[in-house]
């Protein structure tokens, strides 16, 4: 788990009876923990402790996973920076003086901004015998149900027991059952109510049955797992924690820019977290104690150990480049260590992530390239398996659009898996909604399946059917003829050929 360096870790109260000594922490963790007071950001803690970014992030990860520390969401608006001396901070009247830390946009008066509309509010105006509030309830439910999972549909936690699920169902039944408005004028709301009720009942029936619920929960966790893995693999910045054994899904992938390696001109106190060699840090501390430039916090600047500004620019540059490569090496080493640790733990996704980051630093390192590709294959397999489980459940539940999406994700992880390509194509074709968009994709997928396994007759015939549906009869014919050569007496192929012949 990595955090935006602007995040502010907050200490959490210990559970009753537990002492902090009972936790598996090391001296570095203890030190970092002593700096966590709920007001300093990670970046500031890095600066304060003089430790490098990787170490601090790793410690904080550990503390978070042990439940000792919590992380606030990164603020969307930059925290109000005390203006550097001599500059008046332009205060626009609409921004309140205190720092904005809410995630959802807070307007001037503090009223939370409403979420984006699900439907055209004009639908509320239909002439029916329903209270406006109730209409809203029905429309809100109706437009959300296809996206929500069954727990969300009922508005319960995933851990809820049977009783809670039943309670939720009964409460919803009184809202959405059409009998409450027997023979009243309901217009289009009647069909919507019945649709919501059917889905709510489906949720109840699945979650209240032990076996069905177990199956569904497995499906959901496969979904979560896949999402988490995907997020991990696409994240660019920061490094994985040192000992990451938990698999809790991370918050929405935070993509930060790569840590700036090159500082620009001398900047005021606050800098981006930059790893330093021990020497540089010691020098910075020494300078501070001896009263060097800068005030307040020690600004660990790479070039502060350099000759004072004004001296030889070449020497400056050389020194500076040296520092950079030292930093680079250090980073790369850290990533490789992390990757190796992950490999030992069979965490292929984490390992592939770390190797990738190491390669960013040293793109020409062949050893790293080999390591990455090895590990990458394994990681992809893990991801593919998670998506495969999801896709099977969705196909079984006759949710072809979702299944197609999941199969496509499998193909992304396993570009040479013919079955996945074929099933994705088949599901897209079966779903049949928005054929203008999906047929093309389906054709591409099916074609790939055929290319991977040219002897499979069914792959070719499905591809042919897709082509026919798209009006590409020549292509269809071609596939069918190839299929016919493979299976000369197949009546199905003959029938399809006849169809193609007509086109």
């Amino acid at each position, binding site marked *: 788990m990595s955090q935006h360096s602007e995040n502010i870790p907050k200490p959490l109260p210990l559970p009753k009876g537990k002492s902090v000594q009972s936790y598996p922490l090391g001296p570095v963790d203890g030190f970092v923990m002593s700096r966590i007071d709920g007001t300093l950001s990670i970046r500031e803690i890095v600066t304060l402790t003089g430790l490098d970014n990787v170490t601090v992030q790793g410690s904080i990860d550990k503390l978070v996973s042990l439940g000792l520390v919590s992380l606030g969401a990164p603020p969307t608006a930059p925290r109000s920076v005390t203006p550097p001396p001599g500059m008046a901070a332009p205060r626009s009247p609409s921004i309140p003086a205190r720092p904005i830390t809410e995630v959802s946009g807070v307007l001037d008066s503090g009223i939370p901004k409403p979420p984006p509309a699900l439907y055209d509010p004009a639908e509320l105006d239909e002439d029916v015998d329903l209270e406006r509030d109730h209409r809203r309830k029905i429309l809100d439910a109706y437009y959300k149900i296809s996206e929500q999972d069954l727990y969300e549909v009922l508005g319960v936690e995933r851990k809820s027991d049977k009783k809670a699920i039943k309670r939720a169902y009964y409460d919803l039944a009184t809202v959405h059952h059409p009998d409450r408005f027997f023979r009243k004028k309901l217009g289009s709301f009647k069909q919507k109510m019945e649709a919501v009720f059917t889905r709510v009942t489906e949720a109840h029936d699945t979650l209240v049955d032990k076996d069905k619920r177990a199956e569904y929960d497995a499906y959901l966790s496969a979904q979560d797992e896949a999402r988490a893995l995907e997020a991990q693999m696409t994240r660019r910045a920061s490094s994985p924690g040192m000992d990451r054994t938990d698999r809790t899904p991370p918050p929405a992938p935070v993509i930060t820019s790569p840590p700036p390696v090159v500082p620009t001109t001398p900047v005021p106190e606050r800098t981006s977290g930059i790893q330093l060699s021990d020497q540089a840090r010691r020098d910075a501390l020494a300078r501070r104690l001896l009263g060097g430039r800068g005030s307040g916090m020690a600004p660990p600047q790479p070039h502060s150990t350099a000759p004072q500004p004004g001296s030889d620019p070449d020497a400056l540059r050389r020194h500076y480049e040296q520092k950079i490569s030292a930093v680079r090496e250090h980073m790369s080493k850290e990533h490789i260590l992390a990757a190796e640790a992950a490999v030992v733990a069979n965490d292929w996704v984490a390992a592939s992530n770390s190797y990738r980051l190491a390669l960013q630093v040293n793109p020409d390192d062949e050893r790293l390239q080999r390591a990455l590709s090895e590990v990458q294959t394994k990681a992809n397999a893990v991801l593919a398996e998670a998506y495969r489980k999801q896709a099977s459940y969705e196909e079984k539940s*006759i949710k072809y659009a979702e299944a197609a999406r999941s199969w496509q994700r499998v193909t992304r992880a396993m570009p040479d898996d013919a079955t996945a390509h074929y099933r994705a194509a088949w599901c897209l074709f079966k779903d049949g909604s928005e054929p203008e968009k999906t047929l093309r994709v389906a054709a591409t997928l099916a074609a790939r399946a055929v290319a991977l396994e040219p002897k499979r007759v069914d792959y070719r015939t499905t591809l042919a059917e897709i082509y026919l549906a798209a009006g590409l009869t020549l292509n269809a014919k071609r596939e069918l003829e190839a299929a016919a050569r493979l299976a000369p007496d197949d009546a199905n192929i003959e029938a399809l050929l006849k169809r193609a012949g007509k086109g």
Partner: protein
Amino acid sequence: MEKVIGIDLGTTNSCVAIVENGQPTVIPNRGGYKTTPSMLAVTEAGKRLVGHIAKRQAITNAENTVYAAKRLIGRKWSSPQVKNAIATSSYRIVEGPHHDCRIVLRDKEFSVPEVSAMILQEMRVIAEDYLGHPVAKAVITVPAYFNDNQRQATKDAGEIAGLDVIRIINEPTAAALAYGYGRNVEKTVAVYDLGGGTFDISILEIAQNGVFKVIATAGDTFLGGEDVDARIVDWLVQGFKDEHNLDLRQDRMALQRLKDAAEKAKCELSSVKETEINLPFIISSGRNEALHLQRALSRNILEELSSDLVERTVDICKQTLDDARLEKDEIDEVLLVGGMTRMPKIQDAVSKFFGREPSKGIHPDECVALGAAIQGAALVDESQEMILLDVTPHALGIMTFGSYFEELIPQNTTVPTSRTKIFTTSRDNQTAVKILVMQGESEKAEDNEVLGEFILTGLRRATKGQVEIEVTFEINADGIVSVRAKDLETNQEQSIQVTATSGLTRDEIKNMIDNAKEHMVERRVSEEFEGLKQEATRLSAEIEKLFPQVEQIVAASDFGREAIDKARGIVARARTAIDKKDVASLKEQIEGLSRTQRMFKGVVAKGQ
């Protein structure tokens, strides 16, 4: 707010109830009885009799008295249950024009919904008499296991009786409503409903916020008290045959007496261990002497005779518990409904199976009508928070190739609901498919019930299995089934609302409604006439009695003599009006009679 009555249209007895000031109440008939026999008779004079009065003359008019019409309603002429009824009924059953049954009374044919309509009409009159104003809306109950055809036939019967049947609900569910109403309980209950002709077992959940949810239901629509009666009759007939070598079944009157006696004995044996069946002069021996039937029936023998029926109900309970995926100990309460549950053997069997004593919280004969009234009130009154979530008792599906039944909506699915499935053609170059909508549990289409059919045309010619047809089944909150079929390639759609067939066409129903209305009017008029006649006769009699005294007192004066003449005239005119059945004139005369009577009394009083 309009009142809604709840009617329990039972095989043997019917009951009507209403919610008054928040209190569900059973409405007694004019005789003070809370239930009315579901019987209809036509006298030699062509008069229709319903209820108690029909039952009383059943023995002497056996051929023209109908009972247990519920066993025939909505069934096809060819069904085994109808065959069984024909063999055992005292009235004649013939085939109707739509493969349905008709009942023959005094050489006139009546459809089964028509017969039931007359009973419903009687219940309606009972309610209107009690309330003092007309009633139009009703909720009628049916056995949970009734299929759609049987339900539609019952609805038709309600319509013929001039009622707006706002909902048909299941009997066990109604019983649970009566149990849970106003009680603020949260329980899982099993309702064991064994009535005159049908058996149902339903498992429901009652939630605290007024939601009643049926989890599973099953039953047998041809298993009830009448079958136990039949067993007793068999036993009596056999015994008599052994002794006298005569078959009592050949004599309709004997058969009717046997049935009556059997029912009576059965009921008695719920409280005593042995009873005597005494039928003197049951049949003539052919040698100009009459034979008698006298035999003792013990509870033990009765239990032996009916043990397999009891076992069958327990088997169905077991199956339903499985369908509900519940264990016996998860049932909080067992409710007994229906007269048959008074039998000790039944109570024993139920207690043993569920592992608990059944609840005494409801009245086995009245709770169904009360529940129906409660549901009626809840539907028309928006402030009522009660919601009933019932299920389809039978799977719904279509017939597929090879005469197989493909299920779309499984048994015990909560309604409203909708399901979709994709089907394909079964023959090469098939351009149209006939969608046969069916209901039932069998894998073979022929064992299931057909609800309706429609045809989807315009399919492209292809090898069998290539064309894809999407079929969507929907059951809405009123229990109405609609089916849509779409050709996935052409997007051509066709849909129908499947109205199950009761065996009657719309025109026939309309005719019957008109007839029934006419009959209702006639009846009201005749009732009024009776009332007036009574009044007039009473007044006339009083006046006649006073004539001698009055004459004595006023004969002397002219005025007196005129008055007496006038009085005689009024009495004579009243009598004419009675003879002519002239209601309007009679009303007038009654006014006159009243005045005369008062005047006479006054004269006599003064003269004393």
